């Protein structure tokens, strides 16, 4: 491009550079800071392994619950027009905007004995406070919007016409879903699962209210930090970052082909 660059161009470039440095510098340092030795030691620490595993398993469970409960809702929002649709969409987005400790407080409030819902679930033996159930509930609450929004966008990109043709060929709506919609939407559903999982793994503020114990990884990191200081929390952080990055790369990998398709098409 032989046209001379304006100051404007250099401004955009330097602002991008500053932002990249701002994001990468702390993250790279926190990964690079601990010695291999301390990383290895942390890896052999039973508590750390347990916490990371609890983080992964509860987040995964939250993602699966989102899949089961969220897919039909995403389909409804992608396909049907109805009065109040924007309101429903707003409610689905709500958990993104609510401060994290409040989410924990809200969930605890209705799980307690002074709310009919709390009494109902306690009578069948479900306890929220300080249990894995509670953690999964919190993580589903924060992860669900990410799943629904991702899958909704994916479903919207499938022409409704294909479903109409399928039904005219003799398939019921359920059969149409599994033979036409699912094969075309599984990629966005997988992306939604990962988004949901990643959001769930990163949660701390709501969990720390509902269940300090059993300890998920972010809580463990927080505890190590408050109890022993920065240096002792860093190795645990590295392991959790690696899990997050793996999810993140998986997501990029899954969305990459469809994004490049959208560009050329």
């Amino acid at each position: 491009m032989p046209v001379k660059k304006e100051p404007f161009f250099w401004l955009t470039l330097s602002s991008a550079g500053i932002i990249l440095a701002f994001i990468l510098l702390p993250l790279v340092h926190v990964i690079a800071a601990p010695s291999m030795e301390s990383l290895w030691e942390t890896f052999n620490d039973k508590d750390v392994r347990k916490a990371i595993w609890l983080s992964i398993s509860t987040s995964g469970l939250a993602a699966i619950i989102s899949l089961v409960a969220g897919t039909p809702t995403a389909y409804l929002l992608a396909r049907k027009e109805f009065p109040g649709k924007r309101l429903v969409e707003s409610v689905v987005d709500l958990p993104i905007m609510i401060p994290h400790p409040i989410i924990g407080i809200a969930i605890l409030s209705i799980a307690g004995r002074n709310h009919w819902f709390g009494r109902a679930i306690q009578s069948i033996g479900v306890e929220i406070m300080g249990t894995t159930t509670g953690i999964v509930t919190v993580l589903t609450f924060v992860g669900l919007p990410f799943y629904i929004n991702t899958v909704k966008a994916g479903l919207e990109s499938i022409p409704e016409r294909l479903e109409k043709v399928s039904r005219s060929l003799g398939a019921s709506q359920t059969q149409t879903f599994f033979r036409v919609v699912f094969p075309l939407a599984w990629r966005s559903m997988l992306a939604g699962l990962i988004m949901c999982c990643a959001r769930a793994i990163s949660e701390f503020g709501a969990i720390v209210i509902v269940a300090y114990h059993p300890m998920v990884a972010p809580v463990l990191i927080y505890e190590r930090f408050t109890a022993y200081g920065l240096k002792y929390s860093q190795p645990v952080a590295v392991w959790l970052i690696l899990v997050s990055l793996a999810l993140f790369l998986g997501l990029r990998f899954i969305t990459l082909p469809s994004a490049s398709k959208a560009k050329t098409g």
Partner: protein
Amino acid sequence: MIRIEQLSMDLPDFSLNNVDIHVREGEFFALLGPTGAGKTLILESVAGVGPVHSGRIFVDGAEITRLPPERRGVGIVYQDAGLFPHLNVEKNIAYGLRYQKKTEKKRLDWVKWLMERFGIAPLAGRSVENLSGGEKQRVALARALSVKPRVLLLDEPLSALDPAFREDLRNLLKELHSQLSLTCLMVTHDFSEALFLSQRAAVLNKGGVEQCGGVKDIFNRPASPFVAHFVGMKNVFPACGENGQVRVDCLNLSMPSNGRPEPKYAAVRPEHLLLLERKPVQDNQFGLFPAEIRGMVDYGIFCEVLLDYQDQTLVAAAAKSALMSMGLDAGAKVWVEIPQDRIHFF
């Protein structure tokens, strides 16, 4: 075969009012109208994949208004083919056979036969994404016919195709219709397609039926100014009749009424207006008058010529080479002749 009774629907930016349509067994029926006239909505209501707010739909004498689409026995082919992008050609065609009571072998034979019949056997394993428009429509047709529907619905099946492919598929549709004695309901905005393919037609305008009948009849004898314009009779003038004569006052024309005593309009096709460089010798000729060329609209090889005569605008059509050899351009004066037998009164 298909009977639509008092079909109505009310959508935010469109409404359909009490449409009655009857398609006979084995007939090719065309639903004509400009874009946004509600043609596709009618088609989808027959297939059961669109909204119906009131009215009833019968196929083969049985009411299907509340039946789910998969139990209606109605095939549908859309303008954009609507092929399943995750299935190859063969699997697209075989899609509906799972719901038919047939042995695996019979199914395979039937799909094979269909692909042969539609000339797409060499494409069997190909992804549908890379097919040409014409090939896609062939696959869509084969798929719709695979389940032997009682009725075939066609939604502008030719519009998205290149002119060359269009003719191909038009001939194929004509063949299929006569060979398989299909009952077809086709939506189109192109009258020449209807003229070629269908026996009867209905012209829709603003959510209502404007004229219904034999397609040649509509073409030659439109019953309203809208339909006249739609079938290409672009010159429409008010007319009146008395004493066995019909008159087009604005053109100073008068002729025997021939048993059509009370016409309201007279219409002529652009290609029936003759353009002459100078006044012909025999002076007392019928329908001859001077006009000025206001402009020309270029359609490639041929032009539409807009003519001013007194307060009237006339539209003529002529080959560009003819216009060039006459040296005609905007502003030129010409003589226009309207042959008496080309005027349609209604």
